[in-house]
């Protein structure tokens, strides 16, 4: 009988993290930021039908960077669990915080399993606040939760970025973001940030940021029950002009 090699828990964790980082480093970014009427979500994504940002429930959206297939399974599971919870109790009882915990537990369990590959994705779970409540506090205001591959999550304020160059983009946003932006201004800010980061990253196959190479969606503080709205290329072009 051969003696198994000993590998320290720290080493196992480090190996998994390195593995995921290499995957995520390739991933194009998604930015979520608060604007005057809700949350704006923008991703670098030239595809027409495969999305990185999607509707989960009345006030909740999910954005991801990394492997699309892994994101897709989590997206559908999130919609299903949300609908079941809303059907059992009440639609307003479905919250981003609850959903974040659900994802976090799942991703943590997969990352710790000795026989499974950790998920090569990062998620942003977003919830738009309740209409017209300027004094909204706690769970009534806009919420953005960032979940890492191992299920560790954090609460972000005003804006959040996931993807390979997230740190650099966050630094750019730190300098230029202001409160209460209107949607066209917020969209322009993200577009310019993407353009700057693409200019800084010297690659031969430069990614051109244009209305048809980005994916845009928003969660609006409207009276409508379903607050998620995807913006078409035409709408994006009109907003930018």
């Amino acid at each position, binding site marked *: 009988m051969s003696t198994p090699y000993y590998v320290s828990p720290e080493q196992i964790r480090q190996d998994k993290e390195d593995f995921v980082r290499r995957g995520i480093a390739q991933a194009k970014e998604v930015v979520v930021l608060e604007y005057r009427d809700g949350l704006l979500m923008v991703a670098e994504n030239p595809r027409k039908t495969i999305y990185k940002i999607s*509707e989960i429930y009345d006030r909740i959206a999910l954005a991801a960077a990394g492997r699309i297939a892994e994101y897709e*399974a*989590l997206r559908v599971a999130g919609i*299903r669990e949300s*609908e079941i919870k809303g*059907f059992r109790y009440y639609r307003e009882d479905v919250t981003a915080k609850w959903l974040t915990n659900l994802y976090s537990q*799942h991703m943590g369990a997969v990352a710790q399993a000795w026989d499974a590959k950790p998920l090569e994705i990062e998620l942003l779970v977003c919830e738009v606040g309740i209409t017209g409540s300027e004094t909204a506090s706690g769970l009534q205001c806009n919420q953005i939760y960032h979940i890492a591959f191992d299920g560790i999550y954090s609460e972000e304020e005003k804006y959040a970025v996931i993807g390979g160059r997230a740190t650099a983009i966050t630094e750019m946003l730190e300098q230029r973001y202001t409160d209460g932006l209107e949607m066209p201004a917020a969209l322009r800010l993200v577009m310019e940030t993407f353009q700057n980061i693409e200019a800084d990253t010297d690659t031969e196959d430069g990614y051109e940021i244009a209305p048809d190479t980005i994916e845009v969606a928003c969660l609006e503080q409207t009276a409508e029950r379903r607050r998620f709205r995807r913006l078409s290329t035409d709408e994006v072009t009109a907003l930018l002009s």
Partner: protein
Amino acid sequence: MLDLTDYGTSNFFQILKRRHPELLAALHSSNAPSNATVTEASFHQYEGTTVLAVVYDAGVVMAGDRQATEGYQVGERRIQKVYPVDRHSAIAVAGAAGPCIEMAKLFQVEVEFYEKTEGMSLSLDGQANFLSHLVRANLGLAMQGLIVLPLFAGYDLKQQRGRIFKYDAVGGRYEEGDYYAIGSGGKDARATLKKRYSLGITHQTALEIAAEALWDAADEDIATGGPDLIRKIFPILYTITQEGVSEVPEATVEELYRELISRL
């Protein structure tokens, strides 16, 4: 814990049936006691309702009265019997109130669940067919008198017109071209619609004849509620067009009835 094994089904009803059957108690035929007795009375006992739909040139109008009856008593004066389903469809229900409301809610969740997971809306025919399955699933309870009969209407984006579907207790689905009304006052409402309907009517005419049909149904059928001018309770009307589903404002409905009463 997140269970990813259900991936691939866009059918919320199936998921609930398998994972949370307790949430479907009222709509699950296997829950019905096997010694169910069918009487003529039990089939008609709870049908205190008139709901109708009328096709007009740009879409369809759907309307329902507001009264629920409990035997010979008024059970509820402000009940809602017409519910929007997605952006281009609505369901109206007649029958036992509890299972009716549950079916409308489940149907709405189902259609939205499909739209979100698949990334596109379920076609109007797809919605109408799915509703057949829900009605059939309720057959066990229907045999005991807790019947749910829906009327389904919507704007078909492909065919560019308003469409109406009616159902029987075993889930049979039948399309009606112009108008239809169901419930205990359905026959009376249909009589009015038959006399007043003509092809290609305008939105205003559709609202007027829908209001008049409900008035006549309430006049003839004790289980259908008419407009209550003292409590300000009026029937609920929805308009469905290419632009979407919208509720007709209460003030407009009140005006329709004041005008109707002035002509009597």
